[in-house]
């Protein structure tokens, strides 16, 4: 049962990554691309982490996986903010759509 749940979580995580990557390639402007990339990838990584945690041999590994997820959440939220702020300061306009 944990194997099945783990596989489901990992596949869902991959689907979010796929959606984020499609968004990065297809969305019209920087802000919406950033939005797609950071939101979808953060959730995708969370699902992937949960799936891997179900397969890990002990709690120490689970704690390390959780820490990696939290660190990437903080880092990607901050870098999305920095990129968007830089773009706003350079007055890159959002696309009217």
């Amino acid at each position, binding site marked *: 049962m944990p194997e099945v749940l783990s596989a489901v979580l990992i596949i869902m995580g991959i689907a979010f990554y796929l959606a984020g990557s499609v968004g990065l390639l297809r969305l*019209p*402007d*920087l802000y919406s691309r950033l939005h797609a990339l950071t939101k979808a990838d953060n959730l995708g990584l969370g699902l992937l982490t949960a799936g891997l945690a179900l397969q890990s041999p002990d709690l120490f590994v689970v704690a390390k996986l959780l*820490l990696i997820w939290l*660190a990437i959440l*903080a*880092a990607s939220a*901050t870098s999305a*903010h*920095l990129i968007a*702020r830089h773009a706003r*300061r*350079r*007055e*890159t*306009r*959002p*696309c009217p759509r």
Partner: protein
Amino acid sequence: MSPLSLALFDILLLVSIVVLAWTALTSADDRRSVILFMAFGLVVALAWARLLAPDVALAEAAIGAGLSGALLLAALRELPSAVPSSGQALRQRATQGTVSVLSAALAGMLAWILTAHFEGPARDELARAVATHLELSGVSNPVTAVLLNFRGYDTLLELAVLLAAVLGILALGPGRAAYRPSGPIFDALARWLTPLLLVTAGYLLWVGAHAPGGAFQAGATLAAAGIVLRLAGSEWIGLPHDGAVLRLVMAAGVGVFLAVGVSLLVLGRPFLGYPPAWAGALILLIESAATLAIAATLVLAFIGGRLPTEADRKGDAVTAPAAGAGANPDPSDNGEPRPC
């Protein structure tokens, strides 16, 4: 995992490495080249992990992708963004041609060595020699046993190379001024990330005795903490304020290594021939000193010179009154609204 899916993964990995390397080299935009190079480093780290070399994978991810990328981006800020003249473009193309020919020759030679090596039976005398003597080394991670015990000389000389490099960096004069403060959101990340990086560095140093990790990975992580502080606008970035203490830290790697070696000579043992009962403690001592030295070296490389003193800052104010300390005008920022 089935062999087929692993083979598919490996092929994907190989194709990504070659494509990323190619696009990084041929990209017209320097910043894009650097970012592709960082992605290349991360994929190469994955390849090392697939080759069952987690120690190298860690070092590649921390130094090859992370720190080299930060160094290259910092260097890029200093470069003028002028369009090269036709003479320069010609010379650039000549250099690129030469580099391509030499790289192709190197790749051919490596391929020849690889095929020559794989023709004979597998050669694992060295691996077996390490495995049989591992108990005497004081650590249970064979990589650390080789780096710090069986081939301690090599690591000592590597640390000496790093020391020579940092002396060269210091000779460049005062480093770049601190960046302007980055705002509350990055500050919050830095506040949270710096202690985490310090703990991770300590963990990597300690765990190196029995699992992948060690002084180089720990030093790179410690240096990453310094670079995060620098990006947040800190001037001292965790380095000791006192120049004499900083020099001691920089020399600590080579110094402690040599002191251990010479003490063993005095006690009638071979140079760096640790007594098995003490080997673990001595290796930890040397690696701790080396971690600090490596981190200080990498952070000074990021600053690109010695820490600016009061006198340097006054000089800055006189020579460049318009720029001011820490200002970083964006050369591409011409004030025009840009289209989406």
